Structure formats: structure tokens, C-alpha cells
């Protein structure tokens, strides 16, 4: 039992030597610690951003419109309310930004042919945030939006009266008056359409619960992939085809992929620079302490004892720098997130131990070569001042 106690005293003394060598030689400690801390700061900051960028960019990409379109798998078929309910239920609520139904009808106004679109305006604002409306979004029955091309051709604008004519499902002629609440610009074919609420469209056509398609906007960060979600919809709603909007999804995947690689590359460069900084500092420490190493070897220290002491110093530096860098890294990631994306982020707690472990491993790794030099010190030579 006494043996255990005395061995514990020896371990405590060894640790004390490592601590004193760091803390009683503060200037050298500060140089090395600064290097490790900066490395850990950038490391944690970048990894946090790596976690957060898909969320942040996902939001940005959602502003480019839907990334999935639901249609009936038969040509000319229409989606029922039941189809839409089943599809909505199959999609993860946390990833569903919006689901907007669209029903298209051929109409006439002042003897000219147009395409009228019945939709849910609240849903459109979620799935197509890029729509720009001059005037107001329709908020009551009998209000309509006109595309900017229609507005230019007809002179219709906010407050104008608009009459739509057509034939309902029973081929009975209808005529309905609307007030134009706003003019919409989408930069696309939609600028040539006239938009009314789905309820108004159903009232005109006398046919409810059927739409031509639904646009769906989904986030892909931290959950199922778009392909998985499309599969889930098709399983839950037979006869419904879930098509991915390739233009948007590919861009999203490409940008995310490239950005992630860029972050990994920068992280690798930072880790390499940290290793070089620590290694250089440790080499300086070894050169400065050659006499001390020589003395210890003259007193009977084995090479592995000397190596253990220097690696212990490296480990301690790595852990300390990792902890300080983790705290600074969270701040760094917040600043970057705020200045680039205009939003804050929530720190990922589990990244702190990972950062500390990586920082410690990098520091120990960077210390290996200097330690090798330390154990090669010839005591007789350094003690006589060579």
C-alpha cells in the first residue's frame, strides 16, 4: 500500500514539474498558448459554421422557390384534397417550409385570353418568397394579383377592376369581377398570369378540392434528403408523383458541397499552421532548455522520462489552448454568422470536447519532433556549455 502512495507522490511530482515548467516560464507559455488558442478558435469556429452553414444557406435557398413539385402521375390528372393531405402528412414538419396548391384555368378578360391561377396567397409567400408585389397581396375574396406582363399590356394596376369570363365544369358560362390589389413580378412565365384565391377559383369553376399541382419548399439540413422525402410522399399518396426541381436542388447541393470542402480545406490549413507554430515554439523550448535536459539525463533520467515531460507539456498546452479556443471560437462563429448571413447561431456543445481533443492531439503531434531532439541531447556536451 505504501508503494502505491509513494508512486502517487512521484506522479504528482512529475505533474508538478510539467506545470511549473509552463507556468513559471510564462512568456514562452504565452507564445505557444496563443498559437494553440488561435488554431482552436478557428477550428471550432469553422466546424460550428460547417454545422450551421447548411441551415443558413438552406434558408437562403428557400428564397429561390420550391424544390419539389407534386403532380398527378396521369396526364391531365388533378390532385385531390386527400392527395395533398396525405403528402403533407408524409413530409417531416420540421423540414416543410410550405406547400402551395395551384389550379390553372383558361379565362378571357376584355376579349383577350389569359391564364388564371387559383392558389393560396399565404402559402405562396412561404414557397415563393422571391415574388415582388407592387401594391398589396390579396387579402379578401374578389381580390386578384396580375402579373407584370398583364399589367403592362392592359394598364391594370392596384385598384383597377378586372372581369374574368369563362366556362365552368358544366360548360356554363361565368363572369366574375375582381379588384386588382397588386402587380406581381417573378421574372418568369408567371408574370403573364392572373392570380386569384383558390376559393374564388373554385367558386368560378364550380369544382372544389382539385388542383393541377402543388409546389413544396423543403429544407434539407439535419434531416431527410429530398429524394427520401419524395419517396415518402409517393408511398403515402399513391398516384401522386413528387418531382424534384433539379435546377434548385442541384445548385443547393453544389454550393453546399463546395462550401463544405472549402471549410474543410481552411480547417486543414489552420491545423497545419498551428502544428508548425507549436512545433517551432517547442523546438525553441528544447533549444533553450538543453542544459536542463542534459542535467536531468546526468541525474539519471531515462529518455522516455524526458519525452514524457515534454509531451506532457504539449498535452497540457493543447488542452488549455483548446478550452480557451473553444470559448473564442463560439464568438468567432457568431460574428461570422451575423456578418455573412445576418442571423445568430446556437453553439453546438458537443463540438467543445472534439475541439479540445483535436487541439491536444495536434499539439502532441507537433511536439514529437522537438521531443525527439530533446532525448538526443548529450548531457556531457551541454553541461560543459557546447
Amino acid at each position: 500500500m505504501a508503494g502505491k502512495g509513494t508512486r502517487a507522490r512521484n506522479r504528482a511530482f512529475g505533474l508538478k514539474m510539467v506545470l511549473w515548467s509552463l507556468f513559471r516560464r510564462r512568456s514562452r507559455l504565452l507564445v505557444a498558448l496563443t498559437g494553440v488558442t488561435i488554431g482552436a478558435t478557428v477550428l471550432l469556429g469553422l466546424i460550428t459554421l460547417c454545422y450551421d452553414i447548411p441551415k443558413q444557406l438552406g434558408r437562403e435557398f428557400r428564397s429561390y422557390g420550391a424544390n419539389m413539385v407534386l403532380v398527378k402521375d396521369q396526364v391531365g390528372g388533378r390532385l385531390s384534397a386527400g392527395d395533398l393531405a396525405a403528402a403533407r402528412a408524409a413530409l417531416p414538419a420540421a423540414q416543410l417550409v410550405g406547400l402551395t396548391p395551384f389550379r390553372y384555368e383558361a379565362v378571357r378578360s376584355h376579349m383577350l385570353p389569359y391564364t388564371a391561377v387559383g392558389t393560396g396567397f399565404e402559402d405562396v409567400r412561404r414557397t415563393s418568397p422571391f415574388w415582388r408585389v407592387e401594391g398589396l397581396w390579396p387579402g379578401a375574396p374578389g381580390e386578384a394579383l396580375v402579373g407584370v406582363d398583364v399589367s403592362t399590356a392592359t394598364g391594370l394596376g392596384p385598384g383597377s377592376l378586372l372581369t374574368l369570363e369563362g366556362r365552368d365544369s358544366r360548360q356554363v358560362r361565368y363572369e366574375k369581377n375582381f379588384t386588382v390589389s397588386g402587380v406581381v413580378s417573378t421574372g418568369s412565365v408567371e408574370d403573364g398570369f392572373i392570380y386569384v384565391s383558390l376559393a374564388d377559383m373554385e367558386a368560378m369553376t364550380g369544382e372544389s378540392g382539385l388542383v393541377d399541382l402543388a409546389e413544396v419548399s423543403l429544407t434539407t439540413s439535419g434531416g431527410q434528403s429530398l429524394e427520401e422525402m419524395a419517396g415518402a410522399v409517393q408511398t403515402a399518396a399513391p398516384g401522386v408523383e413528387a418531382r424534384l426541381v433539379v435546377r434548385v436542388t442541384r445548385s443547393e447541393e453544389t454550393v453546399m458541397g463546395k462550401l463544405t470542402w472549402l471549410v474543410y480545406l481552411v480547417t486543414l490549413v489552420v491545423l497545419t499552421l498551428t502544428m508548425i507554430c507549436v512545433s517551432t515554439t517547442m523546438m525553441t523550448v528544447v533549444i533553450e532548455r538543453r542544459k536542463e535536459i542534459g542535467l536531468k539525463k546526468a541525474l539519471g533520467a531515462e529518455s522516455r522520462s524526458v519525452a514524457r515531460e515534454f509531451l506532457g507539456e504539449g498535452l497540457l498546452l493543447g488542452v488549455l489552448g483548446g478550452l480557451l479556443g473553444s470559448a473564442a471560437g463560439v464568438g468567432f462563429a457568431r460574428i461570422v454568422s451575423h456578418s455573412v448571413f445576418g442571423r445568430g447561431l446556437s453553439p453546438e456543445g458537443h463540438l467543445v470536447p472534439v475541439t479540445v481533443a483535436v487541439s491536444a492531439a495536434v499539439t502532441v503531434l507537433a511536439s514529437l519532433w522537438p521531443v525527439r531532439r530533446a532525448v538526443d541531447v548529450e548531457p556531457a556536451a551541454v553541461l560543459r556549455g557546447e
Partner: protein
Amino acid sequence: MSDNILDVIDVSKIYGPVKALQNVSLSVRPGEWLAIMGPSGSGKTTLMNIVGCLDSPSLGRVILDGLGLDQLTAGELTAIRREAIGLIFQQFHLIGYLNALENVMVAQYYHSLVDEAEALEALAKVGLADRAKHLPRQLSGGEQQRVCVARALINHPKLLLADEPTGNLDETNEGLVMDILHGLHRQGGTIIVVTHSPEVAQHAERVVVLEHGRVASDSRGADFSDPSGASQTA
């Protein structure tokens, strides 16, 4: 088998064109106090390094406590330094970030097990109990050398090697250090002191004088006549 604690047999040390030691032979009995004298460059420190297992001879053999050093591995030589030898240096070589007590305990740490009470007692024996918690930079040269002596003696070495132990000390501190060595010698300790000081050498029972890497004389302390003449005028 020899009763000597140390046998240096026909040892030479050659550094390129320089012959630091040439066919040096000498023996030391247990409990003997030997002084090695000689001018700068005569090979004193080289001989001490070889005897202290810090260096190896180019030719010849060294037998320490019955072990032929040329037969031992680097690890075994390290063990001999740890177990059998105490070293005192002219420049003290204390570790700057450890206090006096911890500097003594370093030798215990590498030897076997640390014992603070024993280290404190060793410091008390050299008159430094009250300076135990001081860092080397807070100690005078004489105090630093006494810490070095306490560190050299803490593991009860069979052979104490002192290289110019009083070279950086004033007269008072020189006296204090020599008193400590006398105390060790009275208790049967074997001491080899390398010095260029006749005053220090005169404390020894036997004085070996090296010149140009060779043994120029080997005499009992009483028979020793200082080649510089300094001891005769003292």
C-alpha cells in the same frame, strides 16, 4: 576481483586530432577522497565525464563498482548515473523553475521515489532549510552550490564527483562546501574532486595531476606539492 570502487585502465579519449586523455590509469578505493588537478585543457573534466558515465573512452576500460562500463548499454549507464553517482557542477545547473527543495527532489524522482521530508533534511544539512522554497534566482551562488551538493547526496551515491565545486564561490562559501564534503568523507563517502585550486586539492587524501591528458603525478595528500607553488605559500 579488485576491491577498488573505481579502476581506470589505460583510458584514452580522442576528439579528431585532439587527444584529450592518453593512457590514463588510476584506481580509487572505497571511502577515498581523490583530487584531480591540472591546468585548463589537461583532460580533468573529460576524465570526470567518463567516470561519471556521461561520456565513453575511445580506448581503455573503466570499472566502476565492479562493472565494466564498456560492457553496458546506454540505459544501463543511465541507471549507474542514477544509482551510484552524485554530481556537483561548477555552474550548479539548478532547474530555474523549481525551488531549492524541488531541485533536490528531482534527483529522488529520477532515482526512485520522492520524499519531501528527506529532501528537506538534506537541505538542512547544507544549512538551507529556511531557503527551501526559494527559486534558484533568489539564492546566492554559494547557496545554489549547496543546493547542488544536497541534490548530489540525496540518493546516497557510492561515488561523488565534483567538478570545480568551489570555482564560482567566495571564501566563506568555499569553506562551507568543503565542510560538507569533509562530513561526507568522515561517513565513508568516496569523493573525486576535479579542481585547479591547490587549496581545494589539499583537502583530499590523494592528488592526481593531469598534464596534456596524461597522469603527471599521483601522490598522497601530505606528499602533494603544488606545481604552481600556491599551496606552499598558503
